Every structure is written in C-alpha cells, then in structure tokens.
C-alpha cells in the first residue's frame, strides 16, 4: 500500500522538477528582458490559456490525491467506517497516558486512535525509527480527536507530540510505543 514515504518521494520529484523549471524560466526572462524586443505585446489568448492552466492544476491536484492517497478518503469517511481496534489515549501535563504500555496492532487492521487532551493543545504523531512521519493530527482540549489508520506492514513506531505546548512539551516522545505484528 502507498505510505507517507512513497507519497513524499512523489512530491519531492514533482516539486523539484517544478522549481528547476520556474528558475530556468525566470533566468531566461531576466536575460531576454534586457535585449531588444520585437515590439509585440503578449497576446491575450496566452493570458487566458494561462488562467485555464492554473484552474486545471489547482483542481486536479486535489482530485489526484483523493484517488491516490489512501488515507484521504478514509479520513473524510471515518465516521462510517468500523474500526478493528480502538485505542483511547489521554494527554495531560505534557504526558501521554496509554491504555497499555505498548499498543499492539495486527497487520492490515484498521485502528482508531481517540486522543483526549485534559489541558493544552497537543499533537499526536507516529514516527518510524528513522524519524520520518507516518501521520499526525492535532489534539484539541474539549473535543474528540480521532484518526483511523490502516497498518499494512510490520513495524515499530514511536509517538511524538507534533504541536508545541510550551517548553515543557519538547520531550513528549514515547519510543517504540506501537508495534504492528503479522
């Protein structure tokens, strides 16, 4: 299944290609604008085509990601999807309170994390051992903060707060708190 590493690799390639193209365009423009011109003005048709191009890009990005990033539609429809497992987690005084010391998940299970904050706004993120992110969400006090995720491979993950909650919050990391098993 597509995971965050694959999606971000795709994004890196697409954005790098775009950056190189726009830099080349600006470099070319900067050179040409100092040279003698033909006296012709830019045709309005080019302008309208550019507007159309921007509309297509702006809309198609979200359609493409909806069709290719698996967690996007699952997140929007999560209220209607039955989870195989649920974990209720509480956050208070810059600490995570887990229901059990280690959260164990069986591969391919859909898991709902329901995280409650008793005081501040925090974040809830899962990270691999190389510090790359699997996913994250905000944890707002006084509201239900839930995320549904399907784990399709065996791995061990750490939990880290992804939102600043004051200087006391910088050490909000629980190493190897989640294990996905076969």
């Amino acid at each position: 299944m597509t995971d965050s590493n694959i999606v971000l690799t795709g994004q890196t390639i697409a954005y790098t290609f775009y950056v190189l193209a726009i830099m080349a365009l600006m470099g070319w423009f900067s050179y040409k604008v100092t040279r003698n011109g033909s006296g012709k003005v830019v045709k309005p048709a080019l302008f309208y085509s550019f507007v159309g191009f921007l509309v297509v890009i702006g809309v198609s990005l979200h359609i493409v990601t909806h069709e290719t990033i698996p967690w996007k539609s699952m997140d929007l429809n999560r209220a209607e999807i039955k989870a195989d497992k649920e974990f209720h987690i509480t956050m208070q005084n810059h600490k995570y309170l887990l229901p059990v010391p280690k959260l164990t998940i069986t591969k391919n299970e859909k898991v709902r994390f329901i995280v409650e904050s008793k005081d501040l706004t925090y974040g809830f993120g899962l990270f691999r051992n190389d510090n790359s992110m699997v996913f994250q969400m905000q944890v707002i006090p006084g509201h239900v903060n839930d995320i549904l995720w399907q784990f399709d491979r065996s791995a061990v993950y750490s939990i880290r707060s992804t939102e600043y909650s004051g200087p006391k919050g910088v050490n909000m990391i629980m190493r190897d708190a989640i294990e996905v098993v076969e």
Partner: protein
Amino acid sequence: MSFIKTLTNSEQGLFKPDSLTPMQKLALRFVVVGLIYYGVVVIEGMLMRLFEVNQGLALGVSPEQFFAIMTAHPLVGIFGSTYSIVFGAFLFLVPFLMKKPLWSIKLGNWNLWLITIGTFVFWFAGFVSHYSPLYTLYWPLPADFSQFSVLGGTFFIVGIALVMVGTAFFVINIYKTITYTPEGWGKQPKGALIKSALGLTGLTNLFSKKKKEHLVSLPVAAIARGTVDTAFNAVVILFAGVLILIYMVAELFGVSLKHSAIDALLYKNIFWWGLDLIADGLVLIFVAGTWYLLATLITGKKLFMENWARAALFVEMIVSWTVWSHHLMSDQAQPGILKILSGEMVTAFELITQGLAFFITLATLWSARPLKMNPPLKFLLGGLLGFALAVPAGIMQADLGLNRILHNTQWIVGPHVHVAILIGLTMTLYSAIYFLFPILTNGAKLYSNKLASFHFWAHLLGGIGMGAFMGMAGLRGMLRRSIYLNGEFNIYMILAAISGSFLLLAFLAFFYNIVMSVGLKGVLGIFMPAKLKTTELLPTEK
C-alpha cells in the same frame, strides 16, 4: 571623499536631511525603523539556526529562550519590520498617486511610534520573561501560567495591542486620504472613490459594455483592498489580546479563571481567520499591488490586462476572508466540509490570483524591452520568483492527503513561509526601497552598485537555500517548533545555517550601503523635526 567623511556626511555629501519635507521624513523614518527590526529578525533567525545545529553554538540560548525567540521572531518580522516599511511606503505613495496631501501627517507619526514602541515592548517582554506561546497562541497556552510569567505575558500582549492601535491609525489615514476633499478642491465623490478603491468598478467593467472610468489608480486600489484585511486583522488580534489580558489580570489579582470557558477549536478558527488576513490576504494583495506599481514605473507602460488585475485583487480579498481552514486540516473536530471548501478549494484560488499577478507583471515588463537590469528590476524579478516558488508549496500542503504528513513539519516554514517572506515579500520591498530611494532623499546617490548586487545574490541564494534545506528536513519528518537533541537532522540544519549566514551577510551589505549613502548625520537628521513646513510630498523646486 574619505571613508570617514562619507560615513558621516553621505556619498558625495548629496543627502541633506534639511531639504526633506515632513512627508519624506515620515516615510524614511518608517523605513529606518523597519530595517532595524529586520536586522533584529535576521540575528534572531541566525541564533535559532545555530541552536538547531547544536545548542552550544547559540551563544548560551536556553530552550526556554529559544522558544521565546521563536515567538518574537515572526511578530517582529511582520509588525516591526514589514508593517513599518509597507506603511511608510504606502502613506507616501497613496497621496503621491492621488496627487493630494496625506490626510494627517500627525496621525502618520503616531502610527510610526506606536508600532516602533509596541514592537519593542513585546520583544523586550519576551526577551526578559521568556513568554513563548508562539505567534499562533493556541488556546489555552497563552494563559498557561504554570509555564509562563503573568507579568511578562501582560507586557507582551500590551505591546501587541499598541501595534494594533498604530495599525488602526494607518487604516484611517489611508481611507481618509482616498476620500477626503483637500482645501481648495471641488467636492470629492466619496462613494465612487470607495467603489473604485475596493475594485467593484473593475469587477463590473469586466461584464459591462459601458466601461466606467477608474477614479483611483490600480496600486491605490490594491493598497485600499489590502488595508481592509489589515483592519479586520487588527480587530481579531485585539480581540484575542483582550481575552488573554482578562485571564492575566485576573491571575494578577489572585483569581484563576477556567480555561475551559473558552472553546479551543472555536478560538482557533477565529484566530486563524484573523491571522490569515495577513498571510493569505494583505501580504498577497499588497505585494501584487506593489508589483503592478513597480512594473509600470520601471517600464513607463500601461499595465497589461488592467481590468483583470483589478478584478483579481477583489477576488483575492474575498479569498482571504474564506481561506483560513487550511490551517485546521489536521484538527479532526473541524467539519470536513470546511476542510474541503475553505481548506482545499479556496486555497487553490490563490494559485490563480497570484498566478495572474505574476503573469501580468511579467507581460508588462516584456512589453518594454530592452530594460536595464538595475537593482529595482533585479529585486522585482527576485520577488516574483519567490512567490512562484512558495505559492505552489502552500497549495500542496493545503491538500487533505498531504497535510496529514506535512503539517507542522519544517516543510511548512521552509519552502512555503520563509521563501514567501524572504524571497517573495522582502525582495519586493527591497525593489521598492531601491526605486524610492532617490525620490525620498531628493537625489542622494547609492554608495555602491556592487554592494547592491552582492545584496541581491546573497539574499536570493541564502533565502532559497535555507528554505530548500528546511524543506528537505521536513519531508524526512523533522517538526518545526521542536528541539532535536541528538542531531537527527544535522546535515540539513548545517546547510540551512550556512544559507542563513548568506542572508545575514546580504543584510549587512545592504545596511552598510544605505548608511554610507545617507551618512550617520543623515540618519539622525531623518528623526529631527522637518525644517520645511509643508504638506506637499516633495520640496517645491525653486
């Protein structure tokens, strides 16, 4: 001329502060204050960059101080530096373009000092007390007195409030200047001027065969529209400030108010609605207006597709009122419909409005080939490139799928925020400064064009490099607003720090160039009362 003579008396002794009108002095004061605060921001930024590499390198900065710097850094940058430079330029340009005096120079000076003092107060309060809820002030962190000093926080919020009052003075002065009738003039049509300034005339012209005349020029229309967002933003920030102050004052009197009395999500929505009026509102509108102005001034040509440009500015204003939800895509209690409509769809409109401004500016420049590659043109092209890089980065992170793995990472602050501000916004402002310099100084000469060139390249490469390396770290999971103690992302942070040092060098070169151009006596003279008693913008030629 000897070095000492130039340093004291300006390049070739051409800058004479006594020849300045009160309006020139007002604009120059704003610029000087803005540049000094920009220097503070660059130094703070460099300290944070060093801290991210190794805490020991950051001149004894503690983690608490690191977050206090992180709190003050964007606020000093936006209010102390950008607001000062922008307000100074616009208080001069609106009367200049409308060919009538500013409504009130006195109010302009109040505006200046409130922003200058307010910025110093909140910066100093944060420096001393380490008050650090960050600029986002997520509830109830700003009122968490188990982590922060109540007194420090109170002064911090009072400083912000002073800036907002100064901002309100700017808004009043701009709208009054557009609509008032100067002495000896025929009665000005207030309603029609407002309609033209807000872009309603441009919008109806798109669909009407009978085109109405524009009563205000396009740059003035852009300033007027951005000023609407500036006003709304000031109201929201003041509202949040008053709310936080109520908790602080109660605490000072020994009463701890309940945090749960305020709904954290509703507060976050209101706060981001207001804050986004800067990031996705006035910044984009002011920048587009400045691009149009600079393009027409540099080329002497009419703006390409002017009605479209006016209409796009109006659309951008509406977009800025409805775009805030892209900051709440990771908030699971936020309704999904808001995330899609406001977060994804409206945000995508920014690609269109900013793309139009980009195209129109380039097409206008193209129509006047060949142009001389002087500092204003160079920096204008740099500013255009900055937004061309940063806006698509922002559109990507405003996607529900991508936001799940990008939110609060270094990607957000690197390729999007810092590239937009440092390359897009700041280079546009530098272009305007280089262009206005001889006008505001009655023909003073720039000390060195080579230094201006160095300023350009060091700033461009430093800003893009820093954004790129922060972005690479973000794509590998590095969070912003966090501390990594084991050097997990050191390679990227070292490269970002090296790029940051280019930004510092660029600023030092620019600052030195400007000081040498106007001389130390000239800098002091700018802050002395004007000898010319006139409301005219420029001295009358004898």
